[in-house]
Structures are given as C-alpha cells and as structure tokens.
C-alpha cells in the first residue's frame, strides 16, 4: 500500500555512486571547492609550520637581507634577512587561530543568548536586546580598538575583543530565526508530542536555525582576520616579534618607496586570499550541510 516517492532518492538502474555525486557537486561549485582547498592548505601549513617552513621565522641572515624573491628565499627576505615565506607560514598560526577562535567564541555565546531571547521572549528578550543595542551602538572596529587598548596587547585580548564585537550579529540572527521557526508546524508538533523546552530548542529549533549562521560565520572569519590585521597595522594588538600578517604588511609598507615590494605584497596577499576564500565557501558550506540539497541542482 506504500506510495512511491516521486523523488530522486529512489535509485534508478544507473544510479550514480556517492563518490560520483560528491565529485559532481564539487565540480559545480569549483570556486568554493578551490577556496576550501586553499583554507585547508593554509591551516595545515600553519599547524605544521615547524616542519613545513624552510627556515626558522627568527633566523636572521645579514648577508641575505632584503633579498628579492629567488631560489633560496621564495618570497624574499626582510631587513634582518628573515625568510618571508617562513614568517608568513608561522604568522598563519596566530591569524587563523584568532580568526577561528574569535568566531567560534562569538558564535557559541551569541547563539546561546540569542536562542534564549527567541525562546523565552518577553522581558528576557527585552533585556538582552537592549544590551545588544548598546554594544552595536559603537562602530565595530572602534570597539575592538577600545577593548584591545583597555585590556592590553596580547593574542588573547585581541581574540576577546573581536569576539565581543561579533556577538551581536549571531545573537540577532539566531533570535530572528528562532522567532520564525517556533511558529512552524514541526515546532508545534514537537510540543504536542510532549517535548520539554530544552529538547524543542536543541533538537528541533537550533539545528534548523543554523544555516544562516553558518554563512555569517564564514564571512565573519574574514572580518576577524581583517580586524586583527588592521589592529596590528595601527600598532595595537599583536606586537612584534610575534609575526602576524597585518603587522608584517604594516612593516612592509615602509619599504614601498625603496622598492622592496615583496615585503608588503605577500603578507597582504595572504590576508586577501584567506578573506576571499572564507567568503566563497559560505553559501556552499550551508548548502552542503543541508540534507535537502543532495542530488539537486
């Protein structure tokens, strides 16, 4: 008595294998796939910096100071003879850790509080939203600057500052998603079946509220990277000798007039490529995680 689903889930005689399907999806989204590969490459390189980088980041070599990109130093050296490539790879540790870390922290806090606001509404929502309003009243970068200046220049403080400026975005996003979803019939059905509030939240509402959050998170990672770089550029946050792409770009900028273009180009390029990659994977990642998008063009 079962009716057949007129859906592609029913395998036809020549059904493509899972591997084939994944390959097809990757091919359609080659741009995003490329971006993902780049991020993965950078992350792995940064994590294994000790093995991957050809030189130590602090290894000076006066003879090879300010060398242009060449055979021994693929991206050139700085005024102390330090290999630029190795420095960029090591700096990746700091940059990517802070980018992922700040985003993750903001996401967890923002989503929990935002979900609470969406679920309980009333006075809880009111109180939370007024706090959010006060944070959002400050331009995000100014706020990040202020927090870093107040707390002191360290990696942790930069992470914290960026996270704080990001929390309101996730909070508002999840809150409005929860508002929308809680009116859906499956939320009603979940109540009628007898689910307690916490199960409704974590099993029924949140997983369905996450897609826009994922896109926001990937964009935000790019933003986090830029903020960090900008902070270093103006002298706050991460200080030398700790290498970080933003500060390296700032240092390198001094050498434009004297012609050592590689010193600011390559760290800057690292920032640009990472931010671009984060932006590109956003939509595709969301679609990839959605069970509904499998096998559909």
């Amino acid at each position, binding site marked *: 008595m079962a009716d057949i*689903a007129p859906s*592609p889930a029913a395998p036809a005689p*020549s059904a493509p294998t899972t591997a084939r399907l994944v390959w097809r999806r990757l091919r359609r989204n080659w741009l995003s796939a490329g971006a993902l590969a780049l991020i993965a490459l950078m992350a792995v390189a940064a994590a294994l910096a000790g093995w991957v980088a050809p030189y130590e980041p602090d290894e000076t070599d006066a003879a090879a100071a300010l060398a242009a990109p060449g055979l021994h130093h693929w991206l050139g050296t700085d005024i102390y003879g330090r290999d630029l490539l190795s420095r960029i790879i090591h700096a990746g540790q700091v940059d990517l850790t802070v980018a992922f870390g700040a985003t993750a922290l903001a996401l967890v806090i923002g989503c929990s509080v935002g979900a609470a606001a969406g679920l309980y509404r009333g006075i809880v929502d009111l109180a939370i939203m007024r706090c959010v309003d006060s944070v959002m009243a400050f331009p995000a970068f100014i706020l990040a600057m202020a927090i870093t200046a107040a707390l002191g220049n360290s990696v942790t403080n930069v992470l914290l500052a960026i996270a704080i400026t990001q929390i309101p975005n996730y909070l508002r996003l999840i809150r409005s998603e929860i508002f929308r979803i809680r009116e859906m019939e499956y939320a009603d059905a979940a109540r009628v079946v007898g689910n307690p509030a916490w199960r409704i939240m974590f099993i029924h509402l949140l997983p369905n509220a996450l897609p826009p959050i994922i896109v926001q998170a990937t964009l935000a990672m790019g933003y986090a990277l830029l903020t960090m770089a900008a902070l270093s550029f103006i002298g706050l946050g991460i200080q030398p000798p700790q290498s970080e792409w933003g500060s390296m770009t700032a240092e390198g900028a001094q050498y434009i007039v004297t012609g050592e273009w590689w010193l600011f180009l390559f760290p800057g390029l690292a920032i640009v490529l990472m931010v671009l990659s984060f932006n590109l994977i956003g939509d595709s990642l969301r679609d990839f995680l959605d069970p509904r998008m499998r096998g559909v063009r």
Partner: protein
Amino acid sequence: MTAAAPVIEVRDVSVRFATDYGDVHAVDGASFAVRQGEILGLVGESGSGKSVTATAILGLIRRPGRLAHGSIVLGGRELTTLGQEELQKIRGVEVAMISQTPRTALNPLITVGRQVARLFTIHAGLGKSEARRRAIEMLALVGIPEPERRARQYAHQFSGGMCQRVMIAMALATSPRLLIADEPTTGLDVSTAARILDLLRELGARTGASILLITHDLGVVAQTCHRVAVMHAGQVVEVAPVRALFAHPAHPYTRALVHSIPRTDRAIAMEPIPGAVPSLLNVAPGCRYAGRCPWAEDRCRREKPGMTEIAPDHFAACFAVEDGRAAPV
C-alpha cells in the same frame, strides 16, 4: 457537438528536467486543444505534469528543464520556435494566467488600482486617467463591491477571494484569447471558491476568452468545465466532454479516480486507486499506468498507446479500451 476551432493546440509536447540522477520526464507526449469559448479542465494529481504543461505553454520552462519536443500552436502561430522577446508580447496579452496563491502574486507596495491600471498603460497604451477608469471597470466586472474605494487599497487589505478576483481582473484586462487558471480555488474556502468558479464561467462566456482550468478536484471540473483532459504521470490519458467523462469514464485511471472520491450528497464506498504514481525518472516506454492497471498486458508496458476516439469527441489512450477488453462503463 461540432468541434469549434481551437484557440490553442498542444501536440505531442514533452518536457524533461535534467538532474544528477538522470532525466525526469515531467510531461510525455501530451496532446490536447482548448476550443474557442470553452472551459477545458486539465485534471491530474500532483506530479501529473499539469502545471508544467501550463508553464510550457507560456514558454517559461527554464534550465534544468527543457521542451524536449512538441508543438504549441496559438491561433495559428507556433510558440515553441519563438524567442523570449516575442513570447513576452504574447504572455499577459494573448495568454494570461492566474495561480493558486493570489495574494503573493500581487505587489504589496502598490495600490490594487494602480496594478490593474498599469496593464492598460503598458499593453493598450492608454493614458493614466483612462487606464484608471478602465481599471475600476474591470474591478467592478469581477464583482468587487465599491470598486473606486477598493482600487485605492493595498493587497493586504483584501481577503483571499478578493485577491483572486483582482488576479482575474488583471488577467482579463488585455482581453486574452486564453486564460490559464492554475488551481485557482485551492487556497480558498468552499463558498469563496464556488463564487470564483461562477465568476470564471460568467466572464469566460461574456468576454469570449477560453479557459484552461488546471485542478486536481473533480468536483470543480464537474461543475465548471465543458471538456476535460485527464493526465497521469505526465501523459494525457483521456479527453472527453465532461458529462461523458463522468458517466462513461473509459481509461482505467479515470475510472479509478472517479470511484475514489467521496461526496457530500450521498454515502458511497470509496475505493482508492491501486498502486502508486510511478517515478518519472528514467521511465520505461509504454503506458505509465500499466503498473497499476487491472487490464495491463505486456504490450502496455512496451508501447505507449495513442489517443483513439472511442465515442464521438471522446478520446482515450488505452489498449484495453481499444481492444474492448475494458469496455467503456
């Protein structure tokens, strides 16, 4: 009844959609015609291809869909070979459509009167005040009370039934030859739906527009249409005048359909249609009802039956009916 000249003729139209798993044959060799001044009902379950057929008539099939083959002739013109620019001139002017969600089809930011008037300024080249006058006339024609006042209101101030009337007004503004009504009453209450159908019938007669009424509701078909085309899994299986269809359903699917529907005026035994709609993915050749048909033979699974005239103006695509194995009821 002598067959009046057809306003639109759909001949052997097939529409396919490309997916990762292969081609979905949404419409397979559909043929029917809408005659001058009549209301043709296009009946089928969801997935039967009726809406896709309407989309094909309007030339709106887009990737990953394509019109695999077939011809659609509107008043002597072949539509399938026209470019989008020419189709734009036909859409909304000679062929108009109303859908099942009238409220969402109306622009929420513009007054209803302006939306209707625009049609006159764009397609008839009328000036603003003349267009507005005509717009109010149209609103009155579709039975909206106090049309001058209502014309100044916005879509959200109209009830569902009223929105549908506005849609009908907009569709008929350009005096189209063919009005496609895609499930126009599905989202409406019973009494509102009844009035909308009455309105369609009346306006069809008055303006001379022919109507292609797409629905899954046999009750609507019985009360509103002159002739009916029944679709199953993308294939047109039967075309007949409405009385003949209900009194002597020929195709096994039509018979099963008619017997599966409850009524309010008497208690009947409902028999559900056996089996299930076959998957439209990479279909086998032959009749798509064969998997569910009590009279199916091998031939049915290999060959697709053509439409044969089994009674005056009554066509069915079934070998069993042709051979007399399943004599018309």
